[in-house]
């Protein structure tokens, strides 16, 4: 009995810290509609700042709690800075831009933290006065856990009072429902947004600061928490603080008991719960469908068909690419294979988002499934290269059919979150299922067949498969099916009114995009000779989003430029120290200065040149 009580209390203590982070994220989303990936970074900064303050002040009980609060306040200030300099400019931009911009912040904060605090994990001191354990029913319970269990509800109560007893809180709740109307009633939204962002960041900072007696402060804290924080926010209902609390308790307590039965479950459990909740309640436990107003997005530009001249240029480029192995070095040939794989991956994601109107935060799942299926066919079944390569897209298609069926039931951010949940579940499976997937060690030694062993021959294998895949996607984009998908993207209601089965179309679009991502994965695994779980990770999904965004979402050629830029930038920049800082800076520059991406930039350049020539 005592053991189960101890387990429950551990779960509740975890719930409190998870709630602090998630409540901030939920408030920020509710008011600004920004899916803030940098929230994990604020949490990490809170921990590092608190570590420094506590260890330098060394001031006993008072010094400890003072440090924790100051750390939270500083993080709030950093949040304000980020809001004023970056987010304020992109509130009207499509979700994708906001997401990628906040990811740029993640990269910059990571390297800034590395520069200030170094790469070593830092072990924080215990909290003075709460450094022992008390015995409850014979089990030792850390006093600090009990303090946390009290802090969570106390913060919930404080936020509740703030939201119901102050004018500011009432405005925030009103803006969560219909921010445009709040503006029309004379409220300056800009300051409301800033204030909400400061509060949210400070809560994340508080969560991080309170964590120092419980875990080592490390550079992995940001991305390790963000997935779970999103899950809690989505389960609770985006924008609902009470929902975040209930969801945090639900996840943490479930987890505390589930690991007794099945120790490996903790990685995937939150995502499984989220998937179940979203299917039953598409807006989360306490969420409501957002108002149709106030989502003041810039209207989508229609996709352009290439004119004849551009088609010629494109064909010429493909021909140059086709002959390049004859002239360039082996090293460049390999790099070109990377570019082609990345391009197919990006084009498939662009198809899903740009044509299908479904933003995916988990597209890497299908890339990874394709790669793993091909690798396992070679290693476990002893298949040859070509059949193994064929199995990749087939396996990815099956995974996309399965997860897509659930995902297309939702839309917008909730759909994106469910794609992320699907990817995390698959990632968790590859990571945990040691015997079959090799777990963290991945699968090694997946090399091309003898006849394709030379870099040049393999180049042509990749050339045919990747360009073939891109060609298929382009053809479909301009087929009646593609037009129907775009019609659904632009107005689901209108499409339904004329009798289109919108879910089925989106499901098929999802599956096609997943299949071709799987093909990219199958080529990838033979070019690298190995595959690791990070092929399915959120990070890799975000790489895909960055490529689509860098290239420009409105042009079919966009992902091609984006993938090229991404591979080249990674190749150059990742040799430098602090490459994340540079890369994050590049992302922010593109988002803030060239929101139509490289494709838009190239087109504007072309217009300039033409005008000068005329």
């Amino acid at each position, binding site marked *: 009995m005592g053991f189960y009580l101890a387990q429950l209390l551990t779960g509740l203590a975890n719930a409190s810290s998870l709630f602090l982070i998630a409540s901030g994220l939920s408030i920020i989303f509710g008011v600004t509609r920004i899916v803030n990936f940098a929230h994990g970074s604020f949490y990490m900064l809170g921990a590092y700042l608190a570590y420094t303050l506590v260890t330098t002040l060394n001031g006993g009980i008072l010094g400890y709690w003072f440090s924790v609060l100051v750390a939270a306040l500083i993080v709030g200030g950093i949040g304000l800075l980020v809001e004023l300099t970056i987010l304020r400019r992109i509130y009207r931009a499509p979700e994708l831009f906001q997401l990628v911009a906040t990811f740029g912040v993640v990269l910059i904060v990571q390297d800034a933290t590395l520069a200030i605090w170094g790469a070593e994990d830092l072990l924080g001191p215990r909290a003075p006065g709460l450094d022992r354990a008390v015995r409850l029913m014979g089990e030792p319970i850390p006093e600090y856990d009990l303090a946390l269990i009290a802090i969570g509800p106390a913060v919930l109560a404080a936020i509740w009072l703030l939201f119901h007893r102050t*004018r500011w809180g*009432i*405005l925030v*709740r*009103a803006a969560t*429902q*219909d921010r*445009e*109307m*709040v*503006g*029309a*009633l*004379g*409220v*300056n*939204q800009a300051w409301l947004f800033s204030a909400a962002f400061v509060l949210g960041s400070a809560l994340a900072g508080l969560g991080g600061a309170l964590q120092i007696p419980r875990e080592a402060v490390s550079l992995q804290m940001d991305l390790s928490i963000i997935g779970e924080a999103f899950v809690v926010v989505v389960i609770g209902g985006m924008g609902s603080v009470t929902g975040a609390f209930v969801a945090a308790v639900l996840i943490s307590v479930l987890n505390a008991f589930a690991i007794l039965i099945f120790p490996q479950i903790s990685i995937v459990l939150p995502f499984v719960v989220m998937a179940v909740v979203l299917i039953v309640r598409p807006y989360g436990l306490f969420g*409501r469908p957002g*108002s149709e*107003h106030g989502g003041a997005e810039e*209207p*989508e530009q229609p996709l352009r068909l290439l004119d004849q001249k551009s088609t010629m240029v494109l064909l010429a480029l493909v021909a140059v690419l086709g002959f390049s192995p004859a002239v360039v070095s082996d090293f460049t040939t390999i790099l070109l294979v990377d570019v082609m794989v990345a391009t197919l991956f990006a084009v498939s994601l662009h198809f899903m988002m740009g044509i299908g109107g479904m933003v995916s935060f988990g597209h890497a799942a299908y890339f990874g499934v394709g790669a793993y299926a091909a690798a396992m066919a070679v290693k476990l079944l002893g298949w040859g290269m070509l059949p193994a390569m064929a199995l990749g897209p087939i396996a990815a298609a099956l995974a996309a059919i399965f997860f897509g069926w659930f995902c297309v039931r939702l839309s917008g951010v909730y759909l994106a979150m469910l794609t992320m949940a699907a990817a995390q579940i698959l990632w968790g499976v590859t990571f945990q299922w040691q015997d079959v997937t090799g777990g963290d060690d991945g699968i090694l030694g997946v090399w091309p067949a003898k006849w394709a062993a030379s870099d040049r021959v393999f180049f042509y294998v990749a050339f045919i498969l990747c360009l073939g895949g891109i060609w298929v996607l382009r053809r479909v984009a301009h087929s009646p099916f593609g037009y129907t998908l775009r019609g659904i993207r632009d107005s689901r209601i209108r499409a339904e009114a004329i009798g289109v089965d919108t879910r089925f179309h989106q499901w098929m679009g999802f599956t096609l995009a997943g299949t071709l991502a799987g093909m990219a994965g199958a080529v990838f695994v033979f070019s690298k000779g190995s595959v690791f779980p990070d092929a399915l990770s959120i990070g890799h999904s975000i790489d895909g989003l960055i490529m689509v965004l860098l290239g420009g979402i409105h042009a079919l050629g966009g992902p091609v430029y984006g993938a090229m830029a991404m591979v080249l930038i990674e190749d150059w920049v990742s040799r430098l120290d602090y490459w994340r800082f540079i890369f994050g800076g590049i992302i922010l520059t593109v988002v803030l200065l060239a929101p139509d991406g490289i494709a838009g930039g190239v087109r504007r350049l072309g217009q300039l040149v033409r005008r000068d020539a005329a």
Partner: protein
Amino acid sequence: MLEIDGLTARYGRAQILNGVSLTLGRNEVVALLGRNGAGKSTTMKSVMGLVRQTGGSIRHDGWEIRGRASHVICRAGIGYVPEDRRIFGELTVDENLEVGRRPAREGAPHWKTDHLFQLFPNLAERRRNLGKQLSGGEQQMLTIARTLMGNPSLVLLDEPSEGIAPVIVEQMANVISELKREGLSVLISEQNLHFAREVSDRAYIIEKGTMRYEGGFAELDANPDISTKYLAV
């Protein structure tokens, strides 16, 4: 008070207003008539800075407000009552009013909640209820009361009589007369010609984003072909 001149506006690529012009004098109640989709709401949203305007000018007391943020326009004394009410369903009636509250402004009546509850007695009993628990008519009153909390000198009322019971429509007409007595100017968008005639001094008719008629109701009644052409369904 309000002068709109050659206003054009678009949603995405669709041009909705093609040069709308309209003036509204101090303490005047003017009706903006037109069929579904004629551009009445878009005109009001443009004044409020809620749609992107591409050209023309909108002046309020001689001050150009086109292109300004909607909170600035509101603070200049223009109150907006949207057609779909857009009350905050998760907030109580009192809280909804609180969102609309602004400091007193010179040259405009200063509304207090007591006064508003006299004007809208049904709301007084429901102060602690959530917005979403109110009936359609009560919501319509709440959205007007909320806008009045901002002490506007000009009110844009978008189809106040739409979808509410006849008794309440009558009450609505009284409210508009009360606003006029208080010295406010009101622009009402309407499809209900009868209601518009009862409350307003003169009328405009808009059709496909262009003004087709400007003048009094007597003139309009004398030329039934105008209303057949631009108003009848």
